[in-house]
């Protein structure tokens, strides 16, 4: 769908714009990631509200995580999460082998150091969604080889 192209472009422009502004002003790189994450948080909260309006109540945490991996991810990124692992003690690892926001960038190790910038928004998105479903969480991302990420 054409909307996706628009969102991808807006997202990359946002990342570039924020970092450009940070370079010109004070050199506080960490702030940019926080800003992106908090933007993602707001969007995630709103989105999950509209999305789960008509769905049934979730049974437990695992159910919520499965919802995020399947329905939420499909709607936002047009595909499901490839792998979900958990230690049943509150830690979940979501693995996406072809992360939409990174596919356009590279297919390997090139530009690896820039990848985290593009994941900050999505981390915020997940954290916001979970927070509105009643789960407090910390979301981090890891990229070992584009376009896969965890």
């Amino acid at each position, binding site marked *: 769908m054409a909307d996706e192209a628009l969102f991808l*472009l807006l997202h990359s422009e946002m990342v570039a714009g924020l970092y450009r502004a940070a370079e010109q002003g004070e050199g506080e790189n960490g702030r940019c990631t926080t800003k992106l994450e908090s933007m993602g948080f707001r969007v995630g909260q709103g989105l999950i509200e509209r999305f789960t309006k008509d769905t049934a109540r979730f049974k437990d945490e695992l159910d919520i995580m499965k919802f995020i991996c399947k329905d939420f991810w499909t709607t936002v990124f047009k595909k499901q999460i490839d792998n979900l692992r958990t230690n049943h003690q509150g830690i979940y690892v979501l693995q996406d082998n072809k992360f939409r926001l990174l596919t356009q960038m590279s297919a390997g190790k090139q530009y690896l150091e820039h990848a985290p910038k593009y994941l900050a928004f999505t981390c915020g998105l997940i954290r916001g969604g979970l927070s509105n479903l009643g789960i407090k969480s910390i979301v981090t991302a890891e990229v070992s080889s584009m376009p896969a990420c965890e």
Partner: protein
Amino acid sequence: MSRSPGRKQENHKISRELFVLTYGALVAQLCKDYEKDEDVNACLDRMGYSIGVRLVDDFLARSAVRKCRSYSETADMIAQVAFKMYLGVTPSVSCSSATGNEFSLILDKNPLVDFVEELPAERASLCYCNLLCGVIRGALEMVHLAAEVTFLQDRLKGDAVTEIGITFLRKPEDRKHKRN
């Protein structure tokens, strides 16, 4: 699968909402970073320009339209094909000058402001949708049509409709032809 048939519609709607919500978060962040409205407007315009420059490739690839032969055809194309494809709305086009290079797109429904009720009092001159102007300007420039794009009316500021004005700037080659 127990999915209802309306699910696909909903998914499209949610994708669009993702974009609208992200845009709102972006504007909110910019308002926090910059004090003056003009700075925020300029920033949105600049970002829109970069997006437009890339979006036009995507648009041409998806729509496979033929070359436009006149400014009015271009304006119609933007309104009827591009807006419909990316935002799901079709603004109406009207030509507002005798020379045929000034057009306005009138949007009675602007999806970008779906979740915005009103501008806060201290941000009265904020052009919330300034990104759109930048996008149109960037896209036109990539097809070698210089233009100035501004908001003539804005529903968020109390006008009846949202109106975007596109003024095509004459290319220097046109004047050369006229002399001959």
